[in-house]
């Protein structure tokens, strides 16, 4: 199993059940107790934990926002291959794919490039560079330079090297022409006119009116739909005119598939309500179904012998995978039913799906928190409020050998980690940490935060740092050397890390030490570890003496866990996926004093009244985060 590098995930408050229902929150107003303790393995947590980079920050609500809770607005659509912007008006008419010459290989999804078939042999002769430029004439093909697929395999060539999309729309696989959507529309109009003319004498015998050989060629979807629509409209009109005669059937017909009521209802759903006639509700009567292609009858082709024959000749190598089938674009006007494309010969080049640039809004106050420049090629952002510039980043390193990460954590062997908090804001912040002394889940590892409360200096200007660098850097480097010497002497890690003391501090960062005793993953030990746990915890409590809050919290936890231990229903099912990953939930509370901005700060995390404008305002922000340390070795 791949070793895991330490990570920090932060919980977005949008998924906090406390935010969803205020009642549960008020019942337990104190610091998070054990049942409130965030469980990183709970299924719900999957949706709320994000690395810091993915989180945004609403400046007005003073809250973290995650990709799941922000409201997105599309700024621009563009093709990811040619990087041209597509106006949203085109999007409605042309669909969500690039209509230039950008295609993906239907076999490997690599990009297809247009090349000429004619010049290919000529270039093999390695003609001199001063030769006249080879005329790019003759048929062009789309070819994939990754898997060597080319459009000749499906029998498609192009006359021009540009506007491939339109050329492709006119060709079926094998090179036969295909009607474009517009041509089909024209044809439908003609048919509709001829149908209208022939309607008056004998509406029930359309076979006589067709006679253009339509029956051989299967109808495309649009034609079928319009044929059906006109047929049913006609039927509705007829039943309207001849109503009264079949009133007694209404009770039955209302539910039937062929009843005008349900038909008009269905049609109003699919055509946008234009056909829905209020009066028609009163009418009833059974209508007949479509009988001919002109009325929209499409006999489904249940004869699979050609497919079987194809399979006989080409074998399974000629069939396509599910991914390839799913990547196929719906061909407008062609039936794209399940299993319709099963062979490589039926694949079509895939026009690139368009991509978007999106701006993001806070879901609560509707302020924009991220807005890219509308131009496709620029990478600048007009607004970009990322959480990384508001809340401290947390990095995790093993204390003893910061360079080499251990492959796996040894069970029941204490390890110490250095957590480095880096303050991004220009005010000094006070940080309070809280973590359960035992990680939630079946295999509880013991966790001791040696210094749960500390202050980090402000993130001053880089210039200040540069000017100060001379004196400061030497100090820290000396300390580092000392540490290294100590480590070289083989000192025990526990001696160095003192409880309640900051491990190391810099300009805008502070490192503290967390001691972890990974749990044993042996299932037979599950029962013993749950009972013999109480005493250890009392020890850890003594170590952590700074914070009153912390202590209360722990007592609560202990009580809870003791109760649990007495119940002792031990789940001894085998190890579940990722249950060996040691994850520590940690509650982080940040307090700082910021310049008060104005009266619009009444909501959110500000606790002080925002009346006095010059007075510094006290702010706080609190959230859960999860420190992933690594996998525990299974013994």
């Amino acid at each position, binding site marked *: 199993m791949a070793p895991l590098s330490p990570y920090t995930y932060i919980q977005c408050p949008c998924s906090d059940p406390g935010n969803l229902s205020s009642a549960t929150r008020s019942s337990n107003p104190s610091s998070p107790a054990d049942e409130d303790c965030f469980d990183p393995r709970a299924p719900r947590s999957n949706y709320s934990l994000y690395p810091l980079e*993915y989180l945004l920050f609403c400046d007005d609500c003073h809250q973290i926002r995650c990709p799941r809770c922000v409201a997105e607005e599309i700024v621009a659509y563009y093709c990811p291959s040619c990087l041209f912007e597509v106006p949203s008006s085109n999007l409605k008419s042309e669909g969500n794919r690039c209509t230039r010459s950008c295609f993906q290989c239907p076999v490997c999804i690599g990009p297809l490039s247009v090349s000429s078939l004619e010049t290919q042999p000529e270039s093999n002769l390695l003609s001199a*560079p001063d030769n006249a430029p080879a005329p790019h004439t003759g048929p062009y093909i789309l070819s994939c*330079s990754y898997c060597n697929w080319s459009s000749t395999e499906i029998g498609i060539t192009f006359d021009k090297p540009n506007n491939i999309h339109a050329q492709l729309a006119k060709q079926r696989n094998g090179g036969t022409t295909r009607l474009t959507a517009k041509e089909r529309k024209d044809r439908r109009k003609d048919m509709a006119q001829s149908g209208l003319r022939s309607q008056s004498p004998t509406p029930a015998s359309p076979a006589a009116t067709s006679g253009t050989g339509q029956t051989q060629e299967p109808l495309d979807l649009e034609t079928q739909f319009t044929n059906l629509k006109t047929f049913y409209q006609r039927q509705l009109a007829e039943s309207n005119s001849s109503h009264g005669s079949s009133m007694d059937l209404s009770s039955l017909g209302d539910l039937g598939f062929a009843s005008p009521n349900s038909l008009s209802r269905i049609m109003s759903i699919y055509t946008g309500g234009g056909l829905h006639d209020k009066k028609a509700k009163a009418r009833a009567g059974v209508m007949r179904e479509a009988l001919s292609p002109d009325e929209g009858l499409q006999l489904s082709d249940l004869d699979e012998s050609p497919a079987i024959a194809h399979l006989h000749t080409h074998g399974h190598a000629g069939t396509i995978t599910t991914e390839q089938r799913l990547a196929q674009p719906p061909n407008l006007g062609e039936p794209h039913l399940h299993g319709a494309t099963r062979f490589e010969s039926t694949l079509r080049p895939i026009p690139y799906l368009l991509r978007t640039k999106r701006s993001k809004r806070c879901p609560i106050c509707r302020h924009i928190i991220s807005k890219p420049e509308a131009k496709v090629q620029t990478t600048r952002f007009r607004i*970009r409020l*990322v959480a990384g510039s508001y809340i401290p980043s947390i990095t995790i390193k093993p204390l003893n050998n910061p360079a080499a990460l251990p492959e796996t954590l040894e069970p029941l062997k204490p390890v110490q980690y250095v957590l480095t908090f880096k303050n991004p804001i220009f005010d000094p912040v006070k940080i309070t940490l809280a973590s359960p002394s035992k990680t939630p889940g079946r295999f509880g590892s013991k966790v001791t935060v040696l210094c749960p409360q500390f202050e980090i200096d402000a993130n001053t200007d880089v210039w200040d740092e540069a000017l100060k660098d001379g004196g400061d850097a030497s100090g820290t480097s000396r300390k580092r050397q000392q540490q290294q010497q100590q480590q070289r002497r083989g000192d025990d890690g526990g001696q160095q890390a003192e409880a309640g003391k900051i491990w190391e501090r810099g300009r805008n960062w502070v490192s503290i030490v967390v001691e972890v005793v990974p749990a044993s993953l042996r299932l037979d030990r599950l029962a013993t570890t749950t009972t013999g746990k109480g005493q250890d915890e009392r020890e850890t409590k003594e170590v952590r003496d700074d914070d009153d809050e912390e202590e209360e919290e722990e007592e609560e936890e202990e009580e809870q866990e003791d109760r649990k231990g007495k119940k002792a229903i031990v789940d001894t099912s085998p190890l579940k996926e990722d249950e060996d990953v040691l994850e520590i939930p940690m509650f982080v509370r940040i307090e700082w004093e910021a310049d008060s901005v104005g009266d619009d700060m009444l909501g959110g995390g500000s606790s002080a009244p925002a009346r006095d404008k010059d007075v510094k305002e006290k702010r706080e922000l609190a959230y859960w985060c999860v420190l992933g340390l690594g996998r525990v070795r299974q013994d």
Partner: protein
Amino acid sequence: MSRRPPRGEYIETDTGNKVARKATLVGTQNIILGGKTVIQPEVMIRGDLIRSVQAQSSSGGAPASNTAVAIGRYCFLSRGCCLRPPGRLYKGAFTYMPLRIGDHVFVGPGSVVQAAFIGNHVHIGSKVAVGESAIIKDYVRILDGSVVPPNMVIPSFSVVAGQPARVIGEVPEGGHEAFELRDLYKTVGNNPQPAPS
């Protein structure tokens, strides 16, 4: 500067480039380094693969650019990677085209890059193959072991992986700073400094 008694592992130029002595740079006159670029040992840059057919427009004027590989500032070429200008048929004859790389581009160990253009702030993982004439725009992350097919265009803020490579995600808004290579630049050289925590 480089003739100091204890010969360092790197040659450090006036513009701040750190070129490992064990790197193989072929055709150095056709390679442009923007400054503060790190070239680790066993890196190969094929500067000898220059354009053999001059473009019509540039042949008339001043000596056409003979640049084969142009690299911007703060790039980091890890051990064992290879930069190779892409070759293609131009008007019926085979020629190489220049490989242009922007600023803050990280190329992971063992990767082979034959792109035509790489923008700024691009991270290419280890053992990646970037196919010929690929275009990689700004803020793109290519994960380890990907094979970018030839002629592929990767738009900005894409996370790319797979064989053949496909866009599998977007670079989040808060992840832009992670592409900065200024700190990494300081950690290598003849007197490397430890990375700031």
